[in-house]
């Protein structure tokens, strides 16, 4: 952004300099002095940050509209969760990655009480987002209070670019509040192997 802005400065300042060349060369009636000025002007984009009034009023209208859409989005998101996944039955499963030296994630499959509830294939961009500290909510659903079994299957590339498939099982006790489960993929440096840890959050 900054460099982009700096380029704008550059281009904004350059026309002033550009005007110099032809001015120095102007020594004859047929010298295209006027065209030189035109060239200088054409090199100048609308300077940043000054903007026209029309643009500003339309821009203000657009910003107000965007704000409304953003607010509505948030309301819809909240409503969706409250309506479809009430807190007392809600269960959500998250995937996170720590370092990822020994494992490149391709997909995650989830089974809840022996029923497949999610099968997610990660794009390169999503995998990168995980590596940088993002956490992906791979599943959200409802569960009755009581004991349940969660099985997670991870596929990807392990050490030495070999196909890798690992599972993790968790017996989870669903209480009255929402239950969050984190499936954390981390590196076990000592063994040069990935490690899959399941962690419960309340």
């Amino acid at each position, binding site marked *: 952004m900054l460099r982009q802005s700096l380029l704008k400065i550059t281009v904004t300042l350059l026309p002033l300099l550009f005007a110099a060349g032809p001015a120095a060369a102007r020594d004859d009636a047929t010298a295209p002095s006027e065209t030189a000025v035109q060239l200088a002007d054409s090199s100048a984009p609308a300077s940043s940050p000054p903007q026209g009034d029309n643009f500003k009023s339309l821009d203000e209208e657009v910003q107000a509209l965007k704000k409304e859409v953003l607010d509505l989005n948030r309301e819809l998101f909240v409503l969706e969760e409250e309506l479809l996944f009430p807190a007392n039955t809600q269960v959500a499963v998250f995937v996170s990655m720590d370092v990822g030296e020994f494992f490149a994630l391709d997909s995650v499959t989830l089974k809840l009480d022996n029923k497949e509830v999610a099968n997610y294939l990660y794009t390169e961009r*999503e995998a990168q987002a995980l590596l940088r500290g993002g956490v992906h909510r791979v599943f959200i659903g409802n569960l009755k209070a009581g004991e349940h079994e969660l099985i997670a299957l991870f596929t990807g590339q392990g050490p030495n670019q070999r196909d890798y498939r690992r599972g993790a099982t968790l017996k989870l006790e669903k209480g009255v509040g929402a239950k969050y489960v984190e499936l954390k993929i981390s590196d076990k440096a000592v063994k040069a192997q990935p490690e899959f840890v399941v962690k419960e959050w309340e």
Partner: protein
Amino acid sequence: MPGRCNKVLVAVLLALGITSASAKEKRPPEPRPLIGTPQLVRDLHWGDVLFYFYQGDYLQALTRLGAAQDFERVSHHGVEAELLKGGLYLSLGQHEEAGRIFKALLNDNVPLDVRNRAWFYLAKVWYQRNYLEESAIALASIRGALPGDLEPERHLLEAQVLMYLNRYDEAIRALERWQPVGKGGDVWSSYARFNIGVALVRQERVEEAAELLNEVGQIAASSEELAALRDKANLALGFAWLKANRPEDAKKVLQRVRLEGPQSNKALLAAGWADSAEKKYNKALAPWLELRDRDLLDAAVQESYLAIPYAYAQLAATGQAAQQYVTAVEAFAAESQRIDQSIQAIRDGKLLDAIVENDQGDQVGWYWQLRNLPDAPETRYLYHLMATHEFQEGLKNYRDLRLMQRNLATWALSVQAFDDMVDTRRRAFDQRVPGLQKTLDGVDLDAMETHKNELESRLAATERDDDVTALATSREKEQWTKVQQIEAVLAKADQNDPMVQEMREKARLIRGKLLWDFNGSFKARQWRARKELRELDVAYKEARRRSVLVERARGDYPARTEEFARRVASLPPRIGGLSARLEATAQAQNRYLAAVAIKELESQKQRLAAYSLQARFALASIYDKAATSNTAGEGGADKGGAQ
């Protein structure tokens, strides 16, 4: 352009200090983790927000962040979340909202590093909104150094703001304070030196500027970005020397500009002017003829069409000069016609669709940039226009509006599902109520309470009267009753009868044994009875509490369902209304940008017309001279061969 977008993202990441501490060293151009700001995801939903943020999906990130804050799920990242929210609003062009959030972070309860970053971003907001004084003040409010790449960016922004305020000396000092002039071969340093150089040129301190621009003009360019900067430095210095009437020096630096690059056309044109200034018209022709074969869309190329005949005329090759002017007039006319076609295509409303369809990105964002301009009649003349801030802003707005329309269309489908869900809730409740009522009817909590109170009274009486028999087991009570019955029978019998006496003695012994047992176990039984009563009390109260909850839920559930129904019902008109406004505003944006584009094309046409006029004038002048010379020479041949 993608690189530029990434840099923006990186900048925002760094600014927010949410670069993953686990970024791998072997992975290329990852932003460095910030020293002193280790980022550990302590709330899963914070990580969920980052997941979308890192993908550049700002709309989704902002939506999830807002929802997570509503649900109070990011409490461990309160300040960080606000900073990110401000950044996201800024990235979506919501300057006011972003400014409000950043301002709220400027209090003593917020750590200094966060405050500094808030000042920095506020400075950016104000800069973008053209409040330059406020921006300068905000930048001056930063205490100490900002983390990572934000520090150089801060100083460069400060210099930029000061330059816009025409405070060049201060701008130079700001840059020098941060980066000793002439030191460092990194990108930031090169930009800094370039900017100082340009500022010095504007101050007409060309000698000082030359020192810096010369350095930047000879850096080892390890990337296209640096190579482009090097070209710009050489071009800027070249023009500065031309203006200072030092064409020889100008040529030296202009020759450093790459022959194929964004600045090459201007450099070729200027190189020609440098030779021309030294009256070396033959030499000037070389770069100008090279230029003439390039794309006529470029203004420098257009100007070469006039410069070439001008040089021929100076060389007294009037025939060639005339021929070149004729070629120029024809070329300008053809070009002008193509511009007319472009204007027509834009008037037909094809401009923005041609541009937006060409972009593959699917995220909204204020920093959105075109990757490649499609080659179409609507767009081919607009390279220059596309680079302008105003057009870019408008274009991004247009694209954001279209994306938001699609986003709302998706929600509109979900609303139908919400409606169904509300119905399901209603039906499920109606089905469950009879069973629930039956269960509730089978339980008399008041009777239970009476019974419990009675038991408590009895135990209290037992304790008060020290009635040890009251806590006897049923077997013991039976035995005790029998003893009492036996004693009653024996009391009526002949007391002198030895058998009766023996029986009475046995009864007395049994009575004594029983009382002994009762007394011995009384304390323990009393404690146990108390404990059981306490447990009964707890169980009773729990039953009462649950009963209240069930009763309340029975009342609340339908109300909550109806509240959901009300919220769901309010959505379609809101979505519909907003969609209509999005459509109307997108069209207004389209019209506005089309008008801007047409204005730009008209000005290009005017420039071509002016060029054309000059060419015709020059041509007429040549013909005049030829005619005069013919008359003077009484029919002598024209050596220049003007036709």
